[in-house]
């Protein structure tokens, strides 16, 4: 038991109320550990910001925005690299679930997180030496086989390397990158950037990519299982669904996936000047925009979905429209028209709407009698993707996808086969695959080191309502600059979205409200009326509460902009040894005030005796008078 507060030095032992030294005086404060005023204690409890929670890779977005704010770009880059091996890629192509979740949207506009990520990613790519490399552990001698060199496979290889595992990636195509190369056009993601990101990974050592090797044909799954410690299946879905319509076999009907793959691999493609794209998703939009760039003509997206139902990313749709992509919403292809040579010459479209049957399969509802004929010379089909999985054991697959449990484990006897990305979850985002790769690496490590796999700990996500929004000035979002639409239409390599300048990235980072996470704003330190918030360095969470003195006024909790300060009932702290008891303020040591002095007691006893005597003698007594009269 501490005796602080009960020990009073000799020279301060003044029994008279009001003359004990004030807390500001030397040693004075020691007398008054006013912590006993407190019944709620302010506690720093960092929550998970919604951006971080929404990101499938779990990027610590608040943290790197804070680093950018303070010009600490290398720290920011390294923060991203803890979760995501290719910020230059995601900084360009990610559909940014983080921005969708951003609390700032409820305040004014979400933060341009993707642009800042790209800024940091490109900063990292331009460094002479990869800063991640020097902190890698040595290889532990175990090697994991990864099928597919798309984002899922690359992320898994990277995170395995960070844990000391080597990996061999098997890629069926001639170049690595999977969908990043064969699905995403160069005007979204320049080839040089992708190549540089992959080269950066290979430079870490321990990662090997074997291109032109198709599992199932060249190597069997059993060979992988026996030769490697574990297997990660991330082969994606890169085969376009076929068009099930009359004339679908005509020359000029091309799968959008195949079209994008051939362009991505740099092979020559033929595309007409009058292109119809069938489908309502992002592939349709990418294919239409690429068709305009390569063919130099026009492209129209024919979709079952109404315009506001399209699955195209809103900003991509806006950019596509700027580039002249036409839309034919609520239409379906009925029949392909061909000329005498078997080439596409046109199509019959009908009004239609999107409907789904009980299994969730898309069933077009055509309106009879609305057929119209349109001219076209190419039809790109973007109605979904599949993958050939016949080479896998039948119990691995279900409805064209690889079956996996919540940890991405395929139902395999050994428990060392994992899956992730599109082949497991169906068409989804690059960042989903990156996240799957990261989790697979963690769980492969757990399985191989004999640890049980377990789900992530539950987190508390910070809602907008719990922020102290009065502290955040409204500031408009800086949109990432765009190349002019005219230039974009004519070049397949001109990037559509351009980079933030340093100033723009800083301005965006500065808008971060740091939801639920201490960002060292000093507000608690400034508002505390009791000098009870202490700071050593001005950095995340580097404050401490002096519990001996904090009176629990909770001004700091009310004035914490980010909501990372919480009040916790003092009685919840089960720390009897940390209790500091004090005597009350103006009776600083035992006995002061508390007992009648003997002399006073004697006076009172005499007075009572006299009073009793006067009562028995029936004499009056003057209260407070000069004394007892006799």
């Amino acid at each position, binding site marked *: 038991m501490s005796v602080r507060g009960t020990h009073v030095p000799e020279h301060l032992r003044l029994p008279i109320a009001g003359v004990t030294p004030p807390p500001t005086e030397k040693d004075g404060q020691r007398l008054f550990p006013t912590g006993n005023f407190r019944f709620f204690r302010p506690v720093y409890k960092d929550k998970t910001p919604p951006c971080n929670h929404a990101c499938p890779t779990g990027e610590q977005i608040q943290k790197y925005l804070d680093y950018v704010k303070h010009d600490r770009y290398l720290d920011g880059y390294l923060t991203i690299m803890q979760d995501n091996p290719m910020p230059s890629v995601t900084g360009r192509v990610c559909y940014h679930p983080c921005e969708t979740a951003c609390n700032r949207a409820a305040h004014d506009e979400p933060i341009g997180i993707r642009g800042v990520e790209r800024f940091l990613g490109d900063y990292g790519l331009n460094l002479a030496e990869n800063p991640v490399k020097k902190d890698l552990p040595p290889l532990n001698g175990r090697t994991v086989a990864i099928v597919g060199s798309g984002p899922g496979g690359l992320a898994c290889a990277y995170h395995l390397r960070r844990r000391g595992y080597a990996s061999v990636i098997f890629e069926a195509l001639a170049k690595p990158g999977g969908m990043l190369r064969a699905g995403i056009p160069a005007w979204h993601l320049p080839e040089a950037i992708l190549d540089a990101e992959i080269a950066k990974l290979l430079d870490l050592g321990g990662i090997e990519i074997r291109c032109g090797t198709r599992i199932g044909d060249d190597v069997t799954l059993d060979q992988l299982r026996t030769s490697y410690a574990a297997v990660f299946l991330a082969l994606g879905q890169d085969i376009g669904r076929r068009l099930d319509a009359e004339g679908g076999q005509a020359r000029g009907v091309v799968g959008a996936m195949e079209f994008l793959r051939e362009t991505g691999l740099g092979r020559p493609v033929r595309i007409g000047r009058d292109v119809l794209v069938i489908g309502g998703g992002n592939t349709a939009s990418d294919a239409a925009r690429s068709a305009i760039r390569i063919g130099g003509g026009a492209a129209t997206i024919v979709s079952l979905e109404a315009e506001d139902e399209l699955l195209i990313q809103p900003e991509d749709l806006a950019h596509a429209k700027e580039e002249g992509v036409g839309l034919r919403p609520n239409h379906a292809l009925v029949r392909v028209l061909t000329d005498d040579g078997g080439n596409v010459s046109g199509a019959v479209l009908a009004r239609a709407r999107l409907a789904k049957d009980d299994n969730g399969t898309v069933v077009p509802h055509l309106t009879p009698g609305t057929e119209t004929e349109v001219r076209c010379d190419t039809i790109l089909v973007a109605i979904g993707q599949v993958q050939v999985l016949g080479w896998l054991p039948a119990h691995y697959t279900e409805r064209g996808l690889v079956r996996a449990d919540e940890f991405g484990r395929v139902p395999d006897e050994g428990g060392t086969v994992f899956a992730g990305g599109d082949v497991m979850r169906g068409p989804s985002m690059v960042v989903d695959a990156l996240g799957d790769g990261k989790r697979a690496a963690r769980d492969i490590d757990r399985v191989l080191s004999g640890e049980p796999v377990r789900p992530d700990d539950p987190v508390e996500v910070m809602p907008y309502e719990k922020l102290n929004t009065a502290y955040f000035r409204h500031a408009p979002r800086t949109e990432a600059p765009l190349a002019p639409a005219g230039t974009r239409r004519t070049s397949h390599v001109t990037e559509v979205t351009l980079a933030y300048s340093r100033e723009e990235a800083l301005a965006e980072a500065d808008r971060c409200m740091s939801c639920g996470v201490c960002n060292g704003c000093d507000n608690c330190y400034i508002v505390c009326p009791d000098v009870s918030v202490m700071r050593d360095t001005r950095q995340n969470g580097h404050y401490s509460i002096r519990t001996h003195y904090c009176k629990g*006024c909770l001004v700091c909790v009310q004035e914490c902009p980010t909501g990372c300060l919480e*009040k916790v009932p003092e009685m919840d702290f*089960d720390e*009897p040894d940390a209790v500091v*008891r004090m005597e*009350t303020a103006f009776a600083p040591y035992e006995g002061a005030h508390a007992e*009648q002095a003997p002399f006073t007691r004697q006076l*009172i006893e005499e007075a009572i005796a006299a009073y009793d005597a006067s009562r028995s003698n029936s004499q009056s007594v003057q209260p407070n008078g000069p004394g007892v009269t006799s």
Partner: protein
Amino acid sequence: MHHELTVWSRGIIMDKEARDVSTCVTAAARQLGYYAENVSDYVDDPDRTNCLVRRYARFADEPILDRFVYENPHPDWVVLVEETIIKAVNFFRLTADGEGVLVINSARDPYYLLKFLPDHMLAKLAKLVVVDATGLAEQRGSSPWMFVRDLSELAFDRMSTEGAVERLAIGRGIAAPLIGALVAATGVLPVDAVAEVVADRDAMLRGATQHTVVEYAREP
């Protein structure tokens, strides 16, 4: 027979509750023919929110001689209107060994509360009485506290609202079950007689029956 009651509470935000406890005990004692005194302590600077404040009552069957000493020199009954005070102060100063009755307004387990008492205070403890007065009191809106809805909101009170919405009735709210538990557990004053002076008689009687007593001094 001489008993000294010290009620500990917090400045401004829960002052009235403490005052009502000491006032009712004194009033009842007077009506029962005892000599009794009831004093508010102002040296602790009770105008400060959250500051520890004390209310004193004492009664005896012979005249009380400590006329110029308003602090209870040897409190044998101690009431904590808010549970955290158990961590805050030595409320058993100059209490005789093994004679202190401690009444705490808390919904927690009594043995959890006992953990926070150091040995020198435990030596003075005769019995610990835990009563969830907040739960037993008449609920005004969603809470019995005077000005606000619950304790966690009370923590944010900076209005210095004491007296602004004063309730004239004595022995309402938190105070009533606390008085009930104190009187029933000590057994010196008859519960029915004290209930006569408490405004919220029902809550007082709820407190008199629904509390937990740990006979600490008698436990091995």
